[in-house]
């Protein structure tokens, strides 16, 4: 078990390495010059050249990458070109907001999606099923930024009961959570429904029912545990995709989070922040995926056995 865990952890490393190389390459390929942005439209080429040297931008790319990598391993992600603050510090300052949003979004997705899917499966092929499935499909198809704008229109402008920006009180969290969670909610609902349908059909459930065990017990013990597996997997996958939603949400609701930090940095060509931010995010996603796999193994005894016997 532990060996599986460590093995997966080690596998994370080449992935992170790959991520850092790809992002480094793409960001540096972009036309435009962070030194130029810093010094503004009235700067002379001389000044720009000096600043570039100071920032270490005149060194060959692979050298710059090597410096970045070796420092990153020590925990030093460099300094932001724009604000001169340590990148790691900026990331950590903005991370809690993003984490809160992402977690709440996931929570929303699970608490709404799971029961929806279960209901749809239990009442399969009735109007309840049709309604729930349709609802989930709609949630999956509507652009989340549009939902955000419509919500803001309704709840901040037309009937002003919720604040439209900032991150001070719980009221700020309501609309962003819905916007973030709606797509994942839809996916979880659909996934839950199809897993449940599958599980219900399986033999051992019929056997249990035949034995006379109450439906309730059958539901909770046998069905739900098996349903949780794909749900947990999906949740893990979607956490990784969540950055897109996070960026949208932070943009529309002016929330000071990691998503906006990275996007603004890409725009301003603040290389250290982009590299550090994406790496940090990839690391978080990798860890979440790892935990998901562990949870997966815990939930499914067959898989547990597989790992015990493997190598």
């Amino acid at each position, binding site marked *: 078990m532990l060996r599986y865990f460590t093995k997966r952890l080690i596998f994370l490393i*080449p*992935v*992170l390495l*790959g*991520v850092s190389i*790809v*992002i480094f390459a*793409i*960001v540096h*390929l*972009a*036309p435009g010059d962070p030194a130029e942005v810093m010094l503004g439209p009235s700067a002379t080429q001389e000044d720009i050249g000096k600043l570039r040297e100071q920032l270490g931008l005149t060194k060959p790319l692979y050298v710059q990458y090597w410096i970045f990598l070796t420092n990153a391993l020590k925990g030093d992600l460099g300094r932001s070109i724009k604000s001169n603050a340590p990148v790691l510090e900026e990331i950590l300052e903005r991370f809690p907001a993003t984490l809160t949003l992402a977690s709440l979004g996931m929570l929303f997705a699970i608490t709404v999606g799971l029961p929806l899917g279960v209901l749809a499966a239990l009442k399969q092929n009735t109007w309840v099923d049709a309604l729930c499935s349709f609802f989930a*499909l*709609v949630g*999956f*198809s*509507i*652009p*989340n*930024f*549009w939902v955000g*704008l*419509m919500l*803001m*229109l309704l709840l901040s*402008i037309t009937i002003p009961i919720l604040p439209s920006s900032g991150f001070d009180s719980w009221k700020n969290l309501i609309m962003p959570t819905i916007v973030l969670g709606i797509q994942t909610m839809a996916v979880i609902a659909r*996934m839950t429904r*199809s897993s449940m349908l*599958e599980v219900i059909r399986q033999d051992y459930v019929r056997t249990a029912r035949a034995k006379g065990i109450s439906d309730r017990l059958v539901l909770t013990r046998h069905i739900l545990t098996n349903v949780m597996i794909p749900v947990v997997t999906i949740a893990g996958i979607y956490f*990784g*995709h969540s*950055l*897109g939603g996070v*960026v*949208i949400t932070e*943009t*529309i609701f002016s929330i000071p989070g990691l998503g906006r930090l*990275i*996007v603004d940095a*890409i*725009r301003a060509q603040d290389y250290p922040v*982009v590299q550090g931010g*994406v790496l940090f*995010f*990839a690391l978080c*996603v*990798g860890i979440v995926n790892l935990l998901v796999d562990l949870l997966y193994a815990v939930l499914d005894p067959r898989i547990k056995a597989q790992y015990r016997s493997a190598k």
Partner: protein
Amino acid sequence: MTMNEKTVPASSGSGGALREKRRSPWWEVWRRLRRNKAAVAGMTVVILLLFVAVFAPLIAPYDPNQTNIKIRLQPPSAEHLMGTDNFGRDMFSRVIYGSRISLYVGFIAVGIGAVFGGILGAVGGYYGGRLDNFIMRCMDVLLAIPQIILAIAIVGALGTSLLNLMIAVGISQLPRYARVVRASTLTVRGQEFVEAAKAIGASDTRIILENILPNCMAPIIVQSTLGVAQAILAAATLSFLGLGIQPPTAEWGSMLSSGRQFLRNAPYLTFFPGVAISIVVLALNIFGDGLRDSLDPKLRQ
């Protein structure tokens, strides 16, 4: 894979199965699809959308790029069904023309993803070993980079243009096609007719193209339908964030983006394009689901 049993061995050509009238696999699919009411509804909307996109110049009452400052920011009326934007352009016409861009982006992005992803998946699955491992690790890296960051970075590096937008969306869709094709390749690889083809001395490329890929068709088609829906959403999202569409092109996502500063006094600018996107994506998703169900009712995700 149910398709295999009904497909005549590939050496007789891929058209062989289709020419048989009775029990043709595609006919079966069509029959099942027709019975699924929701899928039919979805398909109808999609066809309607194609119709609108193709005949846009005939349907749209005005030139979508015709500016007229005097009538700007007018709410929906008889002359302007969806109102006018801040330059006085007719929103209804813009929404209609927007369908062209959305479909265009959707298909090309998915095309890029499916073709390159499919090739990588087939190659990896077929040859196995270290090549396969390497390709899968690359896919992992692609998946680990948040799609939106990848897209922003690509567009930032290559420049904002429709083509680069499609490339960016296509690349982020690569891994899923690679996975799907690889999985199918693995199942087919060990089968007899592949051994037979090898024994005859057919080249690897031929085997991949004629034997393996046709068998991946079903999951590819399903993925593609859903993929087009997702590509449309992704493109709209990126345009919303300000990447990819050159003015004055009418694209739903960028219309939403320009409209949002008028959210308070002209909410119809953001309402209609959003509804358009939702309907199209919803229809594609319903249709894709129906397609998947009819290709194999027992097919798991």
